[in-house]
Every structure is written in C-alpha cells, then in structure tokens.
C-alpha cells in the first residue's frame, strides 16, 4: 500500500529531508528513484533514518554541553581578567618607582591579553551554540517526522478498512488506491 502513502512536504521522510538540508532537498523529494517495493521497506528505511537523526542529535547535545561549559569558563576568565586590569591600574597609580610602574604595566598588558582571549572564546561559544541550537531543532523535527511514518502509513489502510466494514468491496488490484479514483467511486 506504499503507493497510497502520500506525505506532504512537512511530514514523513520529505519533512525530515527539508529540515535536515535546510530546504535544499526540495528538488529531489519527488525525483526518480527505485520504487519502494513494500510497506516494510518504507518503515524500516524511515526507522533507520530516524536512528541516524537521533545519533546526530545526541552528538549535537554533547557538543552543546561541552561548549556551554567552556562558555562558563570563558565568562569566569573574563571576570578575572577585568579584575586583574583594575588591580594593575591601581598598582600603577601608587607605584613609587620605575620598577613598580613597569611591573604594573606588564600586569596590565597581560590582563588585557587575557580579556581579549576570553572575549574571543565567548564569541566562539556563542556562535557555535546558535548553530547547534538550530541543528538540534532541525534534527528533532526530522526525527519526529520519521517516527510518524508507521502511523501515517497505517492511516492509509484505515479508509479502505472502514469501507470494507461498511459492506463495501475492494478490487483485487490496489491500483485505485493511489490513483485519481476515490474509494467511494471504486
């Protein structure tokens, strides 16, 4: 009954494809492909892809977790660098000789470099987390679309089943299910 399975652009494997490729797979959703031979192949294929998406989601979450830890560390390092700058500035203000002034200047330079490194790390983490967040959303949507394939496919059977339960008959050929002729007309 695969032929009668016609998921829209935002559901099933097509919905997952658009989410994972940011829409780039739109042109190949209905391209030529070896016909899916049976329901089992479709369901198994969707389950395999769902597993793939779940693995990537796990990886994304792991990277995001480590990145957040680095972001927190960089935030702490920035705080320390700014405190060190204040201390060095205060030391420079009270310096009584050239040696003390030079030491204060060196400490200030070091603290500024630490600040710069911390700000760069923060920017890196924030940019990465933005990308990871979007990846997580796309992966979750894709996994959800794929998880629904068995249910969506089962729904394909509902209408003819109800038709039979109501006393209707079905032709032996199932071609009408995927064609333009409705079940009622058949």
């Amino acid at each position, binding site marked *: 009954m695969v032929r009668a399975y016609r998921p829209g652009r935002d559901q*099933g494997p097509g919905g*997952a494809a658009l989410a994972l490729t940011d829409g780039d797979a739109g042109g190949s959703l209905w391209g030529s492909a070896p016909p899916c031979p049976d329901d089992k192949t479709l369901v198994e294929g969707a389950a395999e892809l769902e597993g793939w998406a779940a693995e990537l989601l796990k990886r994304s979450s792991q990277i995001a977790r480590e990145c957040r830890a680095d972001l927190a560390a960089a935030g702490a390092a920035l705080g320390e660098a700014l405190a060190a700058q204040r201390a060095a500035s205060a030391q420079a203000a009270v310096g009584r000789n050239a040696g003390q002034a030079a030491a204060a200047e060196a400490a200030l330079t070091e603290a500024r470099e630490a600040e710069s490194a911390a700000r760069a790390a923060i920017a890196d983490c924030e940019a*990465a987390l933005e990308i990871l967040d979007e990846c997580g959303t796309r992966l979750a949507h894709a996994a959800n679309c794929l998880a629904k394939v068995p249910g969506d496919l089962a729904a394909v059977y509902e209408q003819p089943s109800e038709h*039979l339960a109501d006393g209707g*008959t079905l032709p032996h050929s199932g071609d009408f299910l995927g064609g333009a002729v409705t079940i009622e007309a058949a």
Partner: protein
Amino acid sequence: MTGWTAQAHLLADDLREPGFACAELNASAWCARTDPAATRGLAARRWP
C-alpha cells in the same frame, strides 16, 4: 571561525547526508506501485 564554531559547522554539514537519504526514501515511496497482494490481504483480513 574557531574551535567550537568549526565543530558546529561540521555537525550542520553532517545533517545533509541523512537529509538527502530522506529525500530519496520519499521519492521512492512516491514512485512505488501498489502491490495488489496488499489489497487482497486487506480484503482477506476484513472480508473473509
């Protein structure tokens, strides 16, 4: 682009392969022909 950003971009790139595999599965479902046996089986279950 530094460490974490590079890793995030790599992950984003890795989404594309399963994405196109999903598109292929979708196209495969749309190209499928109905196996008449499926309907016969349904009729047999519901209308013995």
